[in-house]
C-alpha cells in the first residue's frame, strides 16, 4: 500500500467530534484538535485544565453521582453545541469523556455514512457463505462431477476476489465516515497511463470469472501527470473497468481515452454494454443503490464502489461523471487535477 499508516493520535485528531478526557481527579489528560478549535472559537483564550472548567464554560450541572452518561445542549455566540458526558473505566479508575458536537449538517452526513458502513459489514458477512460452502462441498463430497467441481472452484475464487474488493471499500468508507479519508490519501504526481495498465492487468482474470472476454482499446493523448493517490486511482479505474465488463455482452468492448485541457486531465472508460436505465441514473452514485436490471447478471455488486469513487474524486478536487443510454452503453469520465510534469511517482 502506498497510503500512510495513521497513528491513533492522528485519527483522534481528525474526528469531527471534539473530545476531552479527564482523569478520576477531574484533570484534563487528553483532548483532540477539534475540541481545541471549537473551544477557541467559542471562548477565545479559554484554557481548560479541569472538568470543572467545562462545567463553568457551558454552565452545566454537577455530573450525577450514580449516572454514567448525560447530554446537554448550549448555544454560545450563536453556535449550538451538544455536550455529552460519559463516565468510563480507565486504568482501574473512573474517567470522564466529554464529547463536544457542533450542530452542523456535517455531523449528520457522517453519522449516516457510519451507519451505512456498518450495514456493509453484513453484506461482507453474507458473501462468506458461498465461499465457505463451496469449500465444504469440495472437501466433503468426493463424488462431485468434474463440472460441479470446476464451477464451485471458479465461484469460490470470484467470491474471494469480490471479498477483497469489499474489504478495501469497507476500510475507505470507514475512514470517510470519520472524516479521515483525506488524511490517509497520498497525493503525488501520478502517470495515469501507468494506472490504466495496472487496472487492466488487475482485472484481466475476471474474464475467466465472468466467462466473458474483453477487447480494450486505448488512446492516451496526454503525457501530463495527474495529482492523485496512485493506489486509489488504480482501484477506481478497476472498479469502472469491472462494471464495463460485467454489464456488457460477450465480448465486452471497452475504450479508454485520456486527454487534457485547462480543466485538468480527463479519462473516459466507455463500454457498449446494457447501459443504465434512465430511472436509475439519478441514483448511480447513491450508497447501496443497485440498478433495477443489475440482478440479471450473475455477479452482484454492493452498490457502494461508485459512491466511494465519487467521494474520492471530490477529495482529490476532481470529478466523476457518466453518460449512459440503455442498450447502447455507458461512459464514465474521471477528471483529475493536473500534476507537475517531470516529478512523477516512481513506485
Amino acid at each position: 500500500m502506498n497510503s500512510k499508516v495513521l497513528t491513533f493520535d492522528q485519527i483522534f485528531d481528525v474526528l469531527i467530534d471534539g473530545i476531552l478526557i479527564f482523569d478520576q481527579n477531574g484533570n484534563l489528560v487528553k483532548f483532540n484538535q477539534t475540541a481545541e478549535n471549537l473551544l477557541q472559537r467559542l471562548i477565545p483564550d479559554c484554557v481548560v485544565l479541569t472538568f470543572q472548567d467545562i462545567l463553568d464554560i457551558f454552565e452545566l450541572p454537577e455530573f450525577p453521582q450514580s449516572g454514567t452518561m448525560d447530554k446537554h445542549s448550549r448555544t454560545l455566540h450563536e453556535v449550538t453545541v451538544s455536550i455529552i458526558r460519559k463516565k468510563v473505566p480507565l486504568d482501574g479508575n473512573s474517567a470522564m469523556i466529554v464529547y463536544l458536537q457542533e450542530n452542523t449538517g456535517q455531523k449528520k452526513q457522517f453519522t449516516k455514512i457510519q451507519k451505512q458502513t456498518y450495514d456493509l459489514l453484513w453484506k461482507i458477512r453474507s458473501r462468506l457463505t458461498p465461499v465457505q460452502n463451496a469449500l465444504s462441498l469440495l472437501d466433503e463430497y468426493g463424488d462431485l462431477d468434474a463440472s460441479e467441481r470446476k464451477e464451485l472452484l471458479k465461484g469460490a475464487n470470484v467470491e474471494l476476489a469480490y471479498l477483497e474488493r469489499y474489504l478495501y471499500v469497507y476500510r475507505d468508507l470507514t475512514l470517510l465516515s470519520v472524516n479521515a479519508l483525506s488524511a490517509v490519501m497520498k497525493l503525488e504526481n501520478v502517470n495515469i497511463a501507468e494506472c490504466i495498465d495496472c487496472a487492466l492487468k488487475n482485472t484481466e482474470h475476471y474474464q475467466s470469472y465472468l466467462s466473458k472476454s474483453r477487447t480494450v482499446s486505448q488512446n492516451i493523448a496526454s503525457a501530463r501527470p495527474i495529482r492523485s493517490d496512485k493506489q486509489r486511482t488504480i482501484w477506481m479505474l478497476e472498479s469502472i473497468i469491472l462494471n464495463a465488463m460485467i454489464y456488457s455482452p460477450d465480448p465486452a468492448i471497452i475504450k479508454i481515452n485520456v486527454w487534457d485541457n485547462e480543466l485538468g486531465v480527463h479519462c473516459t472508460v466507455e463500454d457498449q454494454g446494457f447501459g443504465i436505465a434512465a430511472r436509475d441514473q439519478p441514483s448511480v452514485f447513491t450508497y447501496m443503490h443497485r440498478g433495477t436490471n443489475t440482478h440479471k447478471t450473475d455477479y452482484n455488486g454492493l452498490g457502494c464502489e461508485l459512491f466511494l469513487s465519487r467521494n474520492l474524486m471530490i477529495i482529490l478536487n476532481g470529478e466523476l461523471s457518466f453518460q449512459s443510454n440503455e442498450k447502447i452503453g455507458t461512459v464514465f469520465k474521471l477528471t483529475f487535477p493536473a500534476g507537475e510534469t517531470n516529478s512523477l511517482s516512481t513506485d
Partner: protein
Amino acid sequence: MLPRKILIIDDEKMIRLTTSILLKKHGIEVHTASSGEEGIGMAEKVLPELILLDIIMPEMNGWEVLGRLQRHPVLQSIPVIVFTADDFRLTEKNGQGKGIYKILIKPFQLDKLLDACELPEEKGVE
C-alpha cells in the same frame, strides 16, 4: 424428515449453486429462481414443500415475496426459511405473522442448512 422438493429464491448465483448441489446430494428435487418475481412464478409451477428465501434482493425483496406468498391461496401453507446476513434487523417482530418457518443467518454452514430443512413428519418423506 427432509422435504422432497425445495425452491431456492436468491439473487446470488453461488448461494443457489452450493445449496442446490448439497440438497440434490440428499435426494431432494431442487428448483431455483434469481428474483422474487421469478420465485413466485416458479413456486406456482412446481409447488415446493419448502422455500428457501433470501431477504436482501433488488426489485422485490424477501419481505415482499413473503407477503405475496402469505396472500396466495395455494402457496401460503408452504414453510419458508429465510436467509439473511443481518440478524439485528431480522427480529422476531419483523418476522411475526409473515409465515417464516426458520431463519438462517449468513454465513451459515451446510449442516445447519440441512438441519433447518427438516420438516415435521407429516410434511416430509421417509
